[in-house]
């Protein structure tokens, strides 16, 4: 049976130090394959180019998308790119590799450590090649705000940050649930596909789902699997009118998903532990 030593408690400080160590170690590893690293950064630049070209083409032909004007939409785009970058930097690689760890049995090695398994398995590799996206997205958001010229109040900033953190929590929880299912299912190629699906749902403002025939889809992805809230709500908090009720629901959804994903993860680990002996 794979177990843990009892009586070892970690303070919060040591978790932050570990995170720093993970970051340094990942960076060293990344720099050992510099050509590959540059190729990956180039990939993200190309992806940004595609997004911006798409944005430019749309706004050449229209002045508003469901009430979002050009610079509000640019802010949304920056928010999407930054958030996608954050998730890819911190979590995506780890969740994809989780399936491999289960298959090869190397997961045992990680379960032996005297540290919370979810923390270890979620943060152990930092993908530095996607980290620039966070800065670039931030720059796009800043540019959009500057062009809009409206005052940025503390209330808006607070709403934005709260909604953003909730959005990150939701996206992370989704990935964690997907990764956990690797313990029960043999084939796990669909994780990247499902992540692509989730990210394609969060790529556009949720206002576009207002069509009568799309109501069911809007309800499902707002209340059941809140993919539509992840980027849209933070962006709305900053540059548009946001009903407080939606912000409250976004925070609740974030918390609920974190709890649900942790429960599913622990259940998966328990069933893994009881299977191997």
């Amino acid at each position, binding site marked *: 049976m794979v177990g843990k030593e009892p009586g070892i408690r970690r303070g919060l400080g040591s978790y932050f130090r570990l995170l720093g160590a993970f970051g340094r170690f990942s960076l060293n590893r990344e720099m050992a*394959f510099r050509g*590959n690293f540059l*190729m*990956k950064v*180039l*990939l993200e630049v*190309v*992806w940004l180019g*595609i997004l911006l*070209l*798409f944005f430019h*083409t*749309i706004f*050449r*032909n*229209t*002045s*508003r*998308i*469901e009430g979002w004007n050009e610079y509000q939409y640019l802010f949304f785009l920056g928010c999407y790119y930054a958030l996608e970058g954050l998730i890819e930097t911190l979590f995506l690689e780890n969740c994809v590799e989780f399936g491999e760890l289960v298959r090869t049995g190397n997961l045992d090695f990680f379960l032996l450590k005297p540290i919370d398994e979810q923390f270890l398995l979620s943060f152990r590799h930092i993908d530095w090649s996607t980290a620039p996206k966070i800065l670039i997205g931030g720059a796009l958001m800043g540019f959009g705000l500057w062009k809009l010229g409206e005052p940025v109040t503390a209330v808006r900033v607070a709403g934005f940050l709260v909604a953003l953190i909730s959005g990150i929590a939701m996206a992370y929880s989704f990935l964690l649930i997907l990764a956990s299912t690797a313990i029960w299912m043999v*084939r796990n190629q*669909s994780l990247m*596909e*499902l992540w692509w*699906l989730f990210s*394609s*749902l969060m*790529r*556009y403002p949720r*206002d*576009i*789902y207002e*069509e009568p025939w*799309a109501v069911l*889809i809007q309800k499902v992805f707002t209340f059941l699997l809140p993919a539509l809230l992840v980027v849209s709500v933070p962006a709305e908090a900053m540059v548009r009118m946001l009903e407080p009720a939606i912000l409250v629901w976004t925070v609740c959804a974030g918390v609920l998903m974190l709890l649900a994903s942790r429960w599913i993860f622990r259940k998966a680990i328990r069933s893994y532990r009881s299977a191997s002996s």
Partner: protein
Amino acid sequence: MSSVPSLPAFRTPGAWGAARKYLRIFRVSLVERLAYRADFLLGTVLRFLPLVTSVLLWSAVYRGSGSDTIEGYTRSQVIAYLLLVHVSRMFSSMPGLASGIAREIREGTVKRYLVQPLDLQAHLLAYRAAHKVAYIVTSAVPYAILFWLMGGYFDWPGDPLVWVAWLASLLLGFLLGYLMEFSLGLLGFWFLEISSFLYLVNTVSFFLSGHLMPLDLFGGRMAMFLKELPFQYLAYFPASVILGRESHESIARGLLVECGWCLALFILGRLALRFGLRRFSAFGG
């Protein structure tokens, strides 16, 4: 399930023997593919959700534009295009082909092509053809339902020649897609790790092939430039043909140029294979 079928000794050499050999590989690969039906049906259904998102987005764009057409496309045409591009990609996408070849080179299993009377290019073509047939047959029902649901967006051309041309462009798209990915995979003979490069090429191809939106929508010179590249035949060209947006002359020219690209890539593939295998056997034992 055994992965490598054992080939009986063929006593009929030459073209006929070769054809029978590859036909057998085709049959075996087809059976293997159909075993993963359920897993793949789910994937097909999930693949349609981004299409719904695109329909909603473009509806919002047209509403905001205040005009019926953008670069000559009506809203219905753009939405029809996005669905038709799925059909084009059904024929021309080759998931895992290039990375599979690179892996075989890296792991050395490509050496069996040096000893067995088996040609890598033809072998994988038969394999992929089988996969495609299985994929298309099993996707037929979901796609039929989707086309029926979205029937209102379509204005099918009456000219039977256009339909024939569409089929031709889809089949050529399959061949072109295969030859492109095959050539990319052969880079494995010269570079150890090409997976990041493949991601880059795939992302660029996604954009250049018109998968994201009709190439015409980029306007003027940009659109003209994009239509000179071979990538447009993977998604944009077949969709444009069946939308009735191409004249007979431009269809004929397009198909001819596409054949030219196929020929060029075929030759590139054969040369790369010859030089690559030579280089490989220089290293191997």
